[in-house]
């Protein structure tokens, strides 16, 4: 499974490693729901650290689609909301 961390690049994770990430996902979602910036930063840092240590970086010259896309570690609540708002145009330059 390939995971992209926005602003950082892509990592390849084994299925087993991915299973270990589920609890982190919940923590991030809770922080976004609660609009708690500190909690979001902590949860994202924990999640991304785990991915960086358990995954292997996808080489720059490899063109691969990611299965998951994660916000950057220093993302603000606003930025995460913006990522989630589908009305936002121009995210992908065609």
């Amino acid at each position, binding site marked *: 499974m390939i995971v992209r961390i926005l602003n950082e690049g892509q990592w390849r994770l084994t299925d087993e490693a991915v299973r270990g990430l589920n609890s982190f996902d919940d923590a991030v979602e809770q922080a976004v729901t609660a609009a708690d910036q500190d909690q979001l930063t902590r949860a994202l840092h924990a999640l991304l650290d785990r991915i960086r240590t358990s995954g292997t970086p996808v080489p*720059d010259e490899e063109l691969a689609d990611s*299965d998951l896309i994660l916000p950057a570690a220093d993302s603000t609540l606003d930025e995460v909301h913006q990522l989630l708002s589908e009305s936002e145009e121009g995210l992908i330059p065609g």
Partner: protein
Amino acid sequence: MSGIFQRISLIFRAKTDKALDKLEDPRQTLDYSYQRQLELLQKVRRGVADVATSRKRIELQANQLNTQADKLTNQAQKALEVGREDLAREALTRRSGIQQQLSDLQVQHAQLQGEEEKLTRASQRLQAKVDAFRTKKETIKATYSAAEAQTRINEAFSGISEEMGDVGLAIQRAEDKTAQMQARAGAIDELLASGALDDPTGTAKDDITLELEQLASTSDVENELARMKAELSVGPSAAPQAIEGQQAPSQQPPSQQPPTQAAPPPSLDAQPPQEYQAPPTQSQEAPPAQPQGDLR
């Protein structure tokens, strides 16, 4: 993994699909897409340059503020040497204001540096992906089966579109941050220009410098007078009073207040503002010389 990350991924994918749908004949539009990638790459490089410019501007301002802080420290030292605690206090108060600005600038500098590194890395990554896309593009053009070409085109497009989306976001973010920094840097420039932080190039003299110079030139005059009187005293008409004046420097405590002036006020290059001018002294009745040592 589900939840918000799945949603974010779906959004990216939806946008890629939308981009692909626009392409009626993908094979012919490969070149067009490649052009768009090169444009984005240019934009990223300009972004890196912009952030670097901002960072350098902050470094320049920090240098100016540092110079200013050092100058104020020196001024405080000099003011204390001539026993002007009020001037020393004023100089140190100004310095603490400047140090606040400095620590704020250091935080901004670290942020910009981080942004610059991320963007540089993104630029390298995109460059590698664009190169990979170009290679794929040529391979696809050589493919005979339309169905096979379509599959490969989809792969290439979605891989590069995702990267372009990511880099596009990074650029947007860097532009926003740079704009914020520019606004703050402009505020500091205005502050420097208004004289509130003084002019670090030293072309204009601040009030503390002026007053210190005035004190120093007063004592220069005193020293000169004492020297002349000492020369006279070794001559045939030497007066005991003048000899006394010659010995005065070593006997006078340097902190005596206020300094007695035996000569008209200095008229060197300084144009002291009225409100900071030293109180006039009765030079006529004063003892001939009371030099206070070299103040410079």
